[in-house]
């Protein structure tokens, strides 16, 4: 934003009106030395309206309406330009631009993502990189009600939870959002992104009605066509006064030019259009745009910059065909590629450089060959991991005594070792054991193969009990498998009705929420949060009640179910009987068990803190 200055009179005093260099404020400074006065500073973002006399009028004036603080009166400033009208125009233009920049920046923050795509495209063409990438502080996010509403409406589960905890519960919205700043941030970032442009010609489908081709074309589409294909704008500009507008578009959609832009093959049978066909050979590319949006490459490393002079390519070599219309039938793939790269050019680059090209000192650094440089020193954070042995020596010593005693009573360590050595010798019945075990399917894995059946039966027993243990683990695990058919289908896969299940889920979610805030506050050590802690304790107590209520209603439901079952066949009832212990009240309690334990722990901890703290506080007081 360049600063602009013009001499102007305010309240019939001569002075200089200027726009600050950062474009944020309009400053009028009196020049009259006799009356020293503070300059009038009008922040640009407070300006609500701007009126100016037409540039042709003899006395050029500008009227600025500024609202200093929200809901206060609007101040009016009238500046009469005393300098040349050019100066006035420059200043006016600069001021208008500054106001526009600030306004549109604000708008972009406020307009939700559902806004008009076209508008966003236009906006994104004008560079506002800083806005898009702007990092918002946590406080900003927490205070942005509109953003919070948007987040809520985007996630039904969150909305439900919000409703339960904040609207019906006693948690404040600030508390609720304080642990969800990441969600707000993610949403804000998501909203600041907009959909990009698309291949507009491909989306226009001429319809054939009664042998007349009909095309419906919206203003947005025309705009996009002009943007994507500057050649069409050029043709339009040159042709339309002569042709009528609808006539132009009708001919355009039948012309070879249209087919060429779309990437279709031109065939000799195509209709001839003496106006539009002139432009067939014109290059459909916008060099100004390219220059503006091409990634900034320092000339020192820009290989593409020399492309035109590249003698290995076509640069200086004469064209063999010697025909100018070589690229008349461009393959569609190339057309699409060109178009795609053009679309990408419209997208605001994230890594755009601020300064003019070739001015950055780091470019030199970037063009150095790094692998030729000496190795840089590594900047790792060193971890000095210490041996923990000193902690464990205490633990091990008593353990050793315990360990050694039973062994020492029976055998010496050396005896154990020699036993181990001899028992694994090859001359032992090592392999025989295995063979017998597999042949007889009656494993005798003890040391003595020839000794009695008692050993093998003992082995059999241990093998059997091993199987039993494994099967019992397996059956427990199978019960835990989700979606098993061992629950009545009628009351849902969880063992109770959908209603109870939903309630449980919701209670669980809210209780977790309360617990989170409770611990956060409890361990904060911040005396100001006492009230919050007490509040959370109350909420947790109520959570316990809620769980109890759900369990009770599940029990009632179970009774009703059982009555219905009883009216049905005996077979079904007997099947239900097996499960009776595992539904209703006990089941709910078991499902929510861990959380109940967590709530209990929290409450106990709080009570104990109260007990120990209260006397001390009394003394202190």
């Amino acid at each position, binding site marked *: 934003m360049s600063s602009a200055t013009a001499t102007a009179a305010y309240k019939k005093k001569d002075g200089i009106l200027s726009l600050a260099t950062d474009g944020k404020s309009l400053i009028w400074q009196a020049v009259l030395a006799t009356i020293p006065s503070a300059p009038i500073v009008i922040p640009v973002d407070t300006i609500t309206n701007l009126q100016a006399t037409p540039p042709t009028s003899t006395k050029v004036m500008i009227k600025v309406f500024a609202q200093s603080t929200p809901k206060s009166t609007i101040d009016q400033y009238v500046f009469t330009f005393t300098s040349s009208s050019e100066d006035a125009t420059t200043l006016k233009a600069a001021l208008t631009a500054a106001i526009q920049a600030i306004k549109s920046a604000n708008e972009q923050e406020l307009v939700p993502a559902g806004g008009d795509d076209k508008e966003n495209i236009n906006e994104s063409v004008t560079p506002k990189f800083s806005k898009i990438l702007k990092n918002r502080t946590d406080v900003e996010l927490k205070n942005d009600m509109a953003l919070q509403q948007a987040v809520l409406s985007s996630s039904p589960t969150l909305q439900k939870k919000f409703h339960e905890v904040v609207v019906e519960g006693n948690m404040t919205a600030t508390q609720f959002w304080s642990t969800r700043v990441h969600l707000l941030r993610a949403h804000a970032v998501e909203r600041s992104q907009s959909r990009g442009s698309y291949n507009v010609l491909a989306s226009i489908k001429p319809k054939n009605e009664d042998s007349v081709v009909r095309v419906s074309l919206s203003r947005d589409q025309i705009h996009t066509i002009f943007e994507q294909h500057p050649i069409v704008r050029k043709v339009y500009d040159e042709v339309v006064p002569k042709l009528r507008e609808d006539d132009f578009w009708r001919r355009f959609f039948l012309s070879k030019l249209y087919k060429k832009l779309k990437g279709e093959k031109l065939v000799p049978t195509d209709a001839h259009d003496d106006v539009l066909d002139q432009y067939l050979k014109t290059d459909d590319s916008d060099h100004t745009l390219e220059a503006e949006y091409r990634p900034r490459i320092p000339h020192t490393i820009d290989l593409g910059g020399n492309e035109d002079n590249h003698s290995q390519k076509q640069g200086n070599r004469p064209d063999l065909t010697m025909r100018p219309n070589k690229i008349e039938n461009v393959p569609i793939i190339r057309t699409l590629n060109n178009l795609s790269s053009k679309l990408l050019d419209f997208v605001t680059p994230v890594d755009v450089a601020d300064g003019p090209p070739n001015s950055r000192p780091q470019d030199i650094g970037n063009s150095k060959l790094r692998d030729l440089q000496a190795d840089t020193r590594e900047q790792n954070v060193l*971890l000095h991991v210490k041996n923990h042995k000193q902690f464990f020596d205490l633990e091990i010593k008593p353990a050793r005594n315990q360990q050694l005693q039973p062994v020492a009573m029976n055998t010496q360590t050396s005896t154990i*070792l020699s036993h181990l050595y001899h028992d694994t010798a090859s001359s032992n019945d090592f392999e025989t054991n295995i063979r017998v075990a597999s042949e007889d399917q009656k494993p005798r894995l003890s040391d003595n193969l020839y000794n009695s059946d008692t050993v093998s039966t003992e082995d059999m027993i241990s093998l059997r009990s*091993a199987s039993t243990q494994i099967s019992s683990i397996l059956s427990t695990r199978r019960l835990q498998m989700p979606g098993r058919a061992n629950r009545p289908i009628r009351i849902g896969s969880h063992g109770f009705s959908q209603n109870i299940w939903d309630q449980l889920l919701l209670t669980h979610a809210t209780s977790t929420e309360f617990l989170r805030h409770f611990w956060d506050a409890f361990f904060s050590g911040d005396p100001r949060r006492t009230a919050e802690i007490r509040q959370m304790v109350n909420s947790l107590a109520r959570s316990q009640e809620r769980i109890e209520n759900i369990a009770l209603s599940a029990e009632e439901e179970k009774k009703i179910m059982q009555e219905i079952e009883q009216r049905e066949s005996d077979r079904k009832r007997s099947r239900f009987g097996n499960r009776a212990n595992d539904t209703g009240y006990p089941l709910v309690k078991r499902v929510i068990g861990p959380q109940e*334990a967590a709530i209990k722990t929290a409450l106990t901890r709080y009570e104990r*803190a109260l007990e120990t703290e209260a006397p001390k506080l009394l003394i202190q007081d």
Partner: protein
Amino acid sequence: MDKVDGTEHYNFKQAADLATLQVIIIDTNPIAWQLLKQSSGLSFPDALSQILIFANAHLAFSQANRAAVIANHIDGAHFLSPVPPGSDTADPDEANMTPEQQKETSQRNASKYRVFRLFEDEVRASYRRLIKSTTAETVDAIPNGSALSGALGLALTYINRICFGGTGGRSSGVPGDEKSKVNSAGGKVDDTGRTMHAKILIVSVTPDPANQYISVMNGVFAAQKLTVPIDVCKLRESTVFLQQAADATGGVYMEPEHPKGLLQYLMMGFLPDHLARSSLILPTRVDVDFRAACFCHKKVLDIGFVCSICLSIFCEPPDGAVCSTCDTKLDVSMLENIGKPVVALPKKKKKKKVTDSLPESGVASAADSPAPTEG
């Protein structure tokens, strides 16, 4: 059109066809086995023969399957099979055998499947050499000795070489390849570049080596990354680390109540390979204890303090607010602030009471220890 395309078919076959490497880590602590024998009647030679049957069953599944046995001995971890290249593979007693004995041995071995025999001989001979070199003094000096982290490290590096080493180059010289002659990997590679799947079975009789917590956990996470399940058969001394190891890597954790039926547990619980496992209900322990042991007093915690740099877990802020593991100076002001008396609020007791089903951790005491009473 898609049906004619054959690529999908090939992909599927490759994924299904990979062989499995079974690495078995056996505790060989003599004292621990002696104690187990006294309490349950399962001696180490019995257990070893049952484990070998299990390994043979694994080898029998596919020609390309491989097995490795690592001894977690009191003073270190040793490969039992395959033996490190260049080391002695003969049984220590073989030199003293009479020709008749040798003949007898070879005759008895004659009818045995060669792969099984080679594998068994190798494991047994290596074990005997290991025991022969162990003195009673060493055992008495460290009766609870366990090199779990070392054994796990050996297993993982071996797996990395066999399963991800590729076909040519250095992997052709994997330890014991020419000695063990047990198996060779199939030439197939799946899309992640692995040539074999692998799983680890830990047969453990020693208590948790608490001083190896960090390295064991690092091993567990490495296994998780390689998608190598760690199965744990805990015959004695319930454990927290290995439970978490099995859970984190998707392995099976079992504490046999009847150690004499070890074979049954091995066959039913640990034999299925990765493909079969995906469609089986595994007999792993139902309730995994996820609590971590604090680094300072080995207490198992609900709530604790974690060093922000090295993630060490403490039941109370370490002395002088310096992490005892990595020497990082921690933010003292934060620690002091926590649990400072707030009106009608925390100044928690040092005394530990068990108030409900959850064991009380040291947090309460931890919170107030650095902060002396206010005023």
